[in-house]
């Protein structure tokens, strides 16, 4: 063991030395390096760490550990401190990154040597790495946005600046109630979120009841409806709604033609955004609620019936109260989704601004007021966090469904006729409407100009995706190709990283006990709650200047994807890993498998479905996300979603729709490919090979 520790230490020491000597310290193209003196400290630190190899073993592990911790931690702090303290340096490059990593790992090995993490070097390294990464790419940017919010335009910090920005009339005025133009964006956001949360919860419940408590045949179809929003770029629904209800949409045209009614613009504003969000987030509520409804133990309902309660009484007094925490959870999820949503308000909002769009316009619009963007971002963040904490309480507090456990059979009580009719009456028309929105949205890509000229055409596809052959090879002449390839490339890079980080973190959370685990879990969960727009602004504030200068690169997009979507992989990993009997890990340990071997040979193979889910999710979300990305794209790195948004904002719906359709097809293909590559987990043979069992030797 001691030898293994020293091997790790020597390995990382050598990696650090090599990086120091060979890799460029700064991320500049002119190859400038820092002064020799500046590199002296990390260099000496690494050499000292290497020298520890010869530390007499009688001094024991804890001495070795302490020295490694001091050297590694000290060296890392030195690098970070000089980076932030010394002005005028270019951003740090690969060399600095690798040296800093190796110093961190030496610190982690020191921790393990002192007996933390049960002396497991791999676990120690992983915990330290994840902590630093999440700190750097989630909490540091959030700290910067908080700082940005209290900084006046001249850079001085004052509470007054924050108060002034937060109390601005534009956020909190209420003249829409008294007949004025519009209310403040703060009210708009709140009202919209409450409305959306209410409708999505109600619809989600209706769907969940239909699927679990009625003999409804087309359950498959409803399941498909829940997948669709995951693989659609966030504004396809908005586009579909415009094609139906917009100024030159079907409904208005029909009304004008039949009754000569003036075309109305009602869809642009609160009603439209509300409708679009309800379409977008009902499936999420459904997914939450189906678990809740299924979790109501049938035996409780049967007990109620044997106590002479009729169906309605059973539903009202037993089933519904049991679902209440789940309903509250679904409501809060809808609330959080709504305030974080950017795609629907930007497409349909019109004059109806919400916080997320307002943040965007104050940073890209004519105003270009980073301080204001930061303040609005902080407000949005505060809202999201409050909802998040309330949700954690609700979910953590009363978990009725777990009490009577599974496995006690029984059949769920049929719904009372009134509830049943209501659930069907709500769910079915809604499902039809959703499908027709998708249908129309896709059809819109094949006509000349929606609302004016319905001649079938492939014009939009050609414009976006035309390809020409020449002597020199293929020319990707369509206007969309550039952003298409960028998106594909960045999503393919980000997906495996996201999945790996998420699953590794899940492993640490579920399977390891260590000091600070609760804080670690809290930090990773917290990054769930941060709305994308806030991340976007905070990344601009944090990574636009040295020492970490990433804006305008592909790296910042990949980093953003990884840390935005990592919680999804984490959740999939946690859920799957909780299903795996911990004694499997323990068996591996008693058989001599170290944590890395156990992870690789036992846990990962059993986690295949979760790995697929994490890969698919992170890939798909990297392709469809818009809120954070829109702040981070650059001329060199334009993404599909931002390209589409700009087409929409220009009124160029045809190309936007064509592009969205292509993305959907692409994502379906990618999901299939990932399934194929990762493969299935095999716990049973396909064919029942179970002929009569040969008896044991003594039987």
């Amino acid at each position: 063991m001691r030898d293994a520790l020293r091997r790790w230490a020597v390995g990382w020491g050598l990696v650090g030395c090599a990086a120091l000597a060979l890799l460029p310290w700064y991320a500049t193209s002119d190859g400038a390096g820092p002064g020799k003196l500046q590199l002296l400290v990390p260099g000496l630190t690494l050499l000292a760490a290497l020298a520890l190899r010869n530390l007499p073993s009688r001094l024991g592990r804890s001495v070795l550990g302490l020295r490694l911790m001091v050297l590694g931690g000290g060296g890392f702090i030195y690098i970070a401190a000089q980076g932030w303290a010394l002005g005028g340096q270019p951003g740090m490059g690969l060399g600095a990154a690798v040296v800093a990593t190796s110093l961190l790992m030496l610190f982690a090995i020191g921790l393990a040597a002192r007996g933390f993490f049960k002396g497991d070097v791999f676990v120690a390294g992983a915990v330290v790495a994840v902590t630093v990464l999440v700190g750097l790419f989630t909490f540091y940017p959030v700290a910067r946005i908080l700082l940005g919010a209290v900084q006046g335009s001249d850079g001085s910090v004052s509470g007054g600046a924050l108060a002034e920005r937060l109390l601005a009339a534009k956020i909190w005025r209420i003249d829409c109630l008294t007949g004025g133009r519009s209310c403040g964006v703060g009210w708009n956001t709140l009202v919209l979120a409450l409305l959306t949360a209410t409708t999505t919860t109600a619809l989600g419940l209706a769907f969940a009841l239909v699927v679990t408590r009625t003999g409804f045949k087309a359950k498959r179809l409803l399941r498909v409806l829940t997948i669709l929003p995951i693989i659609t770029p966030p504004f396809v629904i908005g586009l579909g709604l415009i094609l139906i209800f917009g100024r030159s949409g079907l409904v208005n045209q029909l009304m004008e033609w039949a009754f000569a009614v003036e075309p109305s613009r009602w869809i642009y504003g609160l009603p439209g955004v509300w409708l679009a969000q309800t379409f977008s987030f009902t499936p999420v509520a459904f997914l939450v609620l189906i678990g809740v409804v299924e979790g109501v133990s049938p035996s409780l309902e049967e007990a109620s019936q044997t106590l002479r309660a009729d169906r309605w009484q059973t539903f009202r007094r037993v089933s519904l109260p049991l679902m209440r925490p789940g309903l509250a959870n679904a409501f809060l999820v809808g609330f959080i989704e709504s305030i974080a949503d950017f795609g629907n308000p930007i497409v349909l909002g019109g004059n109806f601004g919400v916080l997320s769009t307002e943040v965007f316009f104050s940073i890209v619009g004519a105003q270009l007021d980073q301080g204001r963007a930061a303040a609005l971002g902080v407000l949005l963040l505060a809202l999201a966090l409050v909802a998040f904490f309330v949700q954690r309480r609700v979910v953590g507090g009363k978990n009725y469904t777990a009490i009577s456990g599974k496995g006690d059979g029984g059949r769920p009580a049929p719904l009372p006729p009134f509830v049943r009719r209501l659930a069907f009456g709500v769910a079915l028309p809604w499902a039809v409407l959703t499908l027709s929105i998708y249908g129309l949205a896709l059809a819109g890509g094949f006509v000349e100009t929606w609302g004016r000229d319905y001649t079938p055409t492939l014009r939009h596809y050609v414009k976006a995706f035309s390809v020409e052959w020449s002597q020199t090879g293929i020319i990707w002449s369509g206007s969309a190709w550039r952003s298409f390839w960028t998106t594909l490339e960045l999503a393919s890079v980000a997906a495996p990283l996201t999945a790996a980080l998420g699953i590794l973190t899940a492993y640490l959370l579920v399977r390891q006990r260590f000091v600070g685990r609760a804080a670690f879990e809290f930090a990773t969960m917290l990054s769930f709650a941060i709305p994308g727009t806030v991340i976007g602004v905070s990344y601009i504030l944090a990574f636009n200047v040295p020492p970490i200068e990433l804006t305008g690169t592909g790296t910042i997009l990949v980093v953003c994807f990884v840390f935005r979507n990592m919680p999804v992989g984490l959740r999939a990993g946690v859920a799957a890993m909780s299903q795996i009997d911990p004694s499997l890990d323990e068996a591996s340990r008693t058989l001599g498998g170290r944590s890395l071997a156990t992870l690789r040979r036992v846990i990962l193979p059993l986690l295949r479905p979760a790995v697929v889910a994490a890969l698919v999710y992170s890939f798909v979300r990297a392709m469809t996300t818009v809120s954070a990305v829109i702040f981070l794209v650059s001329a060199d790195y334009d993404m599909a979603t931002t390209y589409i948004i700009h087409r929409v904002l220009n009124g160029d719906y045809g190309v936007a729709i064509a592009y969205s359709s292509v993305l959907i097809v692409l994502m379906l293909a990618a999901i299939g490919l990932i399934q194929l590559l990762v493969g299935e987990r095999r716990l049973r043979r396909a064919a029942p090979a179970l002929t009569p069992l040969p008896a044991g030797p003594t039987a």
Partner: protein
Amino acid sequence: MTDRRAASIELSRVTKQYGSVTAVRDVSFTIAAGSLVTLLGPSGCGKTTTLRLIAGLETVTSGRIRLGGDDVTALGATERNVSMVFQSYALFPHMSVLDNVAYGPRVGGQSHRRATESARAALAGVGLAELADRLPSELSGGQQQRVAIARALVLEPRVLLFDEPLSNLDARLRRQMREEIRALQQRLGITVVYVTHDQEEALGVSDRIIVMNHAVVAQEGPPRDLYESPDDVFVAGFMGEANRVKGVLQRLDDRTGRVTIGGLTRTLPHRGLADGAVDVAIRPEAILIVGQPTDGALRGTVKRAAYLGSRMEYSIASEIGELFVTSPAVDTPLAPGATVALTLTGHGITLIRP
């Protein structure tokens, strides 16, 4: 690296706390190399925790653990050369039986061929050679148990730990499996620690038994000692049914004393108790029902009777309290209300500390 000799196990003043819960409190015992010792006790008394501490799956809060004389307190499970058979067997569901058994040698760095060879040998040792290519889900419970044992044995551990190995088997398989484990242990001469909550299982399999209660060791000794002379009420009750009655002790010498129970007197080890009123535990089969009331016998009335096939069970009201009595005389059952005389055999009666 692997040391083929069986190792002794020594716990000194071991305590394990989970937050505010003390799962194991100040436990000390020594297990001789090559013996089979059971940890016996009711659910939640800390048996599994003790076993996991020996395996290195948990770290002690305080105290020391030695294996074969070496202090292993700070070592993790991976470095202790201790194998464990889990209650759920913990067979890797995605690996074949052979791969499961070859897992230890593989992660220990052996070549694929050598690992497979030793795995086949270990499987043959438990009589499962022909099932090597199956998946665990395709085996019966008893077969899975054997695979788990083979997997644990393939590394030639110095100590083998079993956590309630029979709890997932049906009643008929249990005795057979128990005998197999005992035979295997004696054949290989390894040290085995065996956790169970079933006193019959413990009596049937062990060289020594360590009875635990509320996170501490209640009593330790050979099976017969524990059954016949339990130290206290808890052990007496847990090692089988026991009647607890009042008696009067009068010491005779430094070992024995005369105990008067109702009208009966017996000479028993006084176990360091002072003269005067004492508690006495009497096993149900130590009370004999004799035909007619005679001098020096207890009088009683049958309250309830139950026929259990191989024996009768009676509740008998007597002058020393209600007694639970078993009798092999199934052919001449007594009806409730019958008057009987009772006397005591020589075994199964002991003074207990209150």
